[in-house]
């Protein structure tokens, strides 16, 4: 309701169109067509709020992103706006800017928009993980599986047919057709979970009969994985002695 008030108070004719549009959407629950407000609109919006209000909203968004990030699925801007920002959507750019600052300065994390078309964010670490961290916080075994696949793709030039990945995994006693003791439905973990998390891309090879897919690195892998460290580990593995 306050949105409509703001719309009627505005003087600038230039922004009237988009502001009226925003006012109409102001009370809408689902807002797929969230239009990014202009800087002047943002400034006007900020003027109407106390710093405490803006800080509180920023903190709420930070917490929301933390919880949403638990599964490592990308966070949609639409969800942030719908569930947290709500009526503060006219100052959304300012809020998200501050949220990014909080993540960097307080937590050493980085909020990255990996898709500027669909407006989707991921949270990555700015700091390298130390050696002792794995002793204190044991990692998820799935990371090991992911490492194997990423290594193969990387060493094969960035694209690999899925058959190569499955054959290699079979040698490691991971079979996409059988239920794995640790990973469960391996095919689902690799082609669905890792893909949703943007660690991998599972792309159809065109003109193949029957259907075949290939693996590539996903956007999250591009941002999170240090290729140097990956190579170091691969080299370390290669030095492991084989019998005979």
């Amino acid at each position, binding site marked *: 309701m306050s949105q409509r008030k703001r719309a009627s108070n505005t003087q600038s004719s230039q922004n009237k169109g988009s502001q009226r549009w925003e006012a109409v959407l102001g009370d809408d629950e689902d807002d797929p067509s969230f239009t990014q407000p202009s800087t002047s609109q943002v400034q006007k919006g900020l003027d109407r709020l106390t710093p405490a209000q803006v800080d509180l909203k920023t903190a709420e968004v930070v917490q929301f992103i933390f919880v949403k990030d638990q599964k490592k699925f990308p966070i949609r801007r639409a969800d942030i706006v719908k569930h947290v920002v709500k009526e503060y959507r006219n100052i959304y750019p300012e809020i998200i800017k501050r949220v990014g600052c909080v993540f960097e300065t307080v937590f050493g994390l980085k909020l990255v928009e990996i898709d500027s078309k669909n407006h989707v964010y991921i949270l990555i670490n700015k700091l390298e993980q130390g050696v002792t961290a794995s002793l204190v916080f044991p990692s998820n075994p799935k990371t090991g599986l992911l490492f194997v696949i990423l290594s193969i793709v990387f060493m094969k030039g960035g694209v690999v047919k899925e058959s190569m990945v499955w054959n290699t995994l079979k040698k*490691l006693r991971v079979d996409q057709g059988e239920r794995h003791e640790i990973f469960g439905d391996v095919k689902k973990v690799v082609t669905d979970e890792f893909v949703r998390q943007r660690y991998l891309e599972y792309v159809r090879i065109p003109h193949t009969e029957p259907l075949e897919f290939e693996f590539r690195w996903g956007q999250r892998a591009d941002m999170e994985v240090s290729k140097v460290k990956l190579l170091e580990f691969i080299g370390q593995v290669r030095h492991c002695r084989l019998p005979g």
Partner: protein
Amino acid sequence: MRRTSRGGGETAPPRQNGVPGGKGDGRAAERGDAAAGGDDDEAGCSPADMQDEDNDPARRREIRSKYRDLINSVQQNREDMLSPTNNKLTDVLEEANKLFAEVRQAREAALDAQLLVLATDLGKEKASQLHAEGSAFDPSAFAEHLLSFMGLNRLEDEDEEEEGGGASGGYLPQDAWQRVANRAQRCFRTAPSFHYMMGSFLAELPPPRQRVERQRKVPGREAKRIMPTQLRRMEESHQEATEKEVERILGYLQDYFNEDPTSPISYYEFVIDPTSFSRSVENIFHTSFLVRDGVARMYLDHDKLPCIAPVEEGEVEAGGTSSRQQCVISISPKSWKEIIEVFSISEPLIHPPSTQHTE
């Protein structure tokens, strides 16, 4: 989209593939070659014949069929064609080249385009293969080394040479993948997952339980509530009823006495209800209260039969403090009937109350 370039009539194919010029030139060249060769069927045909050949459906079908064969062979033998050890892809392309020379209609051209798409895809893959060969990364060897890293305990068993498709035999420890994950995690700059330090509890479970419990409790509570009130009501009604009855009976007694103060009221005639034994018992019970409270007195007349009379107002207190005398009256249905007979009691002196209280 290239594949679906169908149009009516004869349209020129979308690209060159080494065959000189358009169809006109091709045809001329062919004819020229044929003429030069001298052993071709088409040597010395006239323009009219050429026209027929263009539209000869059998020939067209033949060309299309050959194209389809080529396409199928490429699809079926894809792996074979990819192999860097042979030049099968080149052979296919040369075949296609030859066929293309005879292409006249759009349908054939479309098939040619389809074949070309397949061939170029294969070509792209072959090229990427070349690149891969250069890096000399063998995933199988990598897997073997990784198994060592995981701590695979390869058993020195002569019988277990090859197990399950060339995989290493041996016992893989439980924490094998954990080991890899811990070391691999160092390569990632993952943001730590948010968890409450002291843990949290799932708020989801309690509601269903509460609902069940509440459902169970509600009938219980109500039942309990019902019981006390019922009892209370009964007690009250009992007390009230008793008191009311007693008073009512006192009323009767006084009325009858006042009718004829000199005539004594036979106790039996007073309390006995010829229509109901239980009423008679109740009357006795209620009357006893009157006696206890000292508002009525019982005495034996000259025939030694019990009589009852209300106590005079002035005598009430005196009656209360006089020496206590008790007597127990018992009556059985048999005696009750006898009394009715003997005393010829036809109707009750104490009329039953109009409303029956709950029992």
